[in-house]
């Protein structure tokens, strides 16, 4: 009897539809979010994440409608992110039926959003999502991470959907987020996202070992073994994937059966 490792399908939403692109570009339509979420639920998904990737630029409202429809039909945990800037935004989504809200760019711009959100809605509600990429320029105060090829770099937090570097060290930011009351870290590496070459193990394990809150690995899954590597080598508490599930390369159940066969505790 142990806490099981979680498999979390992620649905990137644009105007209320699921989309998937490579490195945040070339978006393709992948269906109705609630329909897909229901399918994942039936396959044994442990949670579902909705990320509204256009919310920063366009109208909100469609996401609220999607969340309420999903919450009415699904009895499993629901995380919503994208364009959340204020406590009122959080409140609206939680009222609509979200269990957790994920903040990314807005948390970097105003880290008190983490503490204020945690104080008002509880630590367990606040997921800090971070997009990171490798930086090989030497800089004081950064956390050196050794890559599998022997090179050393640090990971930099990037915001606005991966388009703007911040100069912030990813490990430092993760610890800062935890101290401010984040309940969970959703870590996406821009190096691996969309590549199907596997999670970015180096940064995932570095952060997971240094924080006391759960870490969700994201970006790069292409095979069943990549999930295993994410949990074992990456020390992730949950693995998130989008396209492999959307395009039916394998089901959530197949992933879990594979993990169970390799000795990882999962809910089947």
């Amino acid at each position, binding site marked *: *009897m*142990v806490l*099981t490792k*979680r498999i979390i399908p992620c649905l990137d939403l644009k105007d209320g539809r699921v989309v998937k692109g490579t490195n945040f570009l070339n978006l393709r339509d992948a269906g109705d979010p609630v329909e897909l979420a229901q399918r994942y639920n039936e396959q044994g998904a442990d949670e579902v994440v909705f990320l509204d990737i256009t919310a920063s630029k366009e109208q909100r409202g469609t996401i609220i409608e999607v969340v309420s429809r999903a919450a009415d039909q699904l*009895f499993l945990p629901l995380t919503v992110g994208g364009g959340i800037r204020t406590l009122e935004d959080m409140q609206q989504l939680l009222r609509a039926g979200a269990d957790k809200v994920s903040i990314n760019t807005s948390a970097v711009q105003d880290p008190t959003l983490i503490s204020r959100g945690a104080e*008002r*809605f*509880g630590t*367990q509600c606040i997921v800090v999502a971070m997009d990171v990429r490798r930086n090989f320029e030497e800089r004081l105060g950064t956390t050196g991470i050794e890559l599998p090829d022997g090179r050393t770099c640090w990971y930099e937090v990037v915001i606005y959907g991966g388009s703007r570097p911040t100069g912030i060290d990813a490990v430092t930011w993760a610890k800062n987020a935890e101290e401010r009351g984040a309940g969970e870290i959703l870590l996406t590496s821009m190096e691996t996202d969309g590549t199907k070459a596997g999670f970015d193990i180096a940064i995932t394990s570095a952060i997971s070992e240094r924080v006391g809150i759960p870490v969700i690995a994201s970006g790069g899954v292409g095979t069943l073994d990549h999930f295993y590597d994410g949990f074992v080598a990456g020390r992730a508490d*949950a693995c998130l994937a989008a396209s492999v599930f959307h395009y039916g390369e394998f089901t959530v159940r197949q992933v879990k059966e594979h993990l169970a066969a390799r000795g990882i505790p999962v809910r089947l």
Partner: protein
Amino acid sequence: MKKIAIIDYGVGNLRSVYRGLERAGADATITADAAVIAAADGIVLPGVGAFREGMEMLGDLQETVIAASREVPVLGICLGMQMLMESSEEHGTHNGLGLVPGSVKRFPPAPGMKVPHMGWNSLRIEQDDPLFDGLMNERYVYFVHSFYAATTPECTLTTTEYICPFASSIKSGNAYGVQFHPEKSGAVGLRLLENFIERIC
């Protein structure tokens, strides 16, 4: 149809609790009205967030819930369960509703173990109760919490193991509590809500 009052004290995702109870066959109402609460066949005390804030937000409804629990079953969920206890050690010592003996404690630090305890873990049934009718031992339910209720073995219906074994479902008189979220625990959770409505209320 059983009338279930979901206590609305301004916290959390009440919509899922409401839909879960509705799906499980209840005539559910989200309410802060003492008269509606007093007229219900059963009460659900939901909640997420911090203990002291929860008790403060509950305010005058504390007495309403205590009074109602003399007549009808009360089901506390997550923070709602913790508030049934005598006290909590979350950010200082604070009094709870005192319906179940014991106090709420933080998980002790343990190497490699993350807090909050977040995700699906299983229930070991320690005492038979109608709440678990039709549910086998060791079924998975969804947890999100950093604190747990330390109570007596007599009041412990199920235990779950994380860092230490803790009471994941409790009962004392009419007061029931579950540390996990039945409304987020798929078919197992819905069955448990149905049991509460049909077999306990």
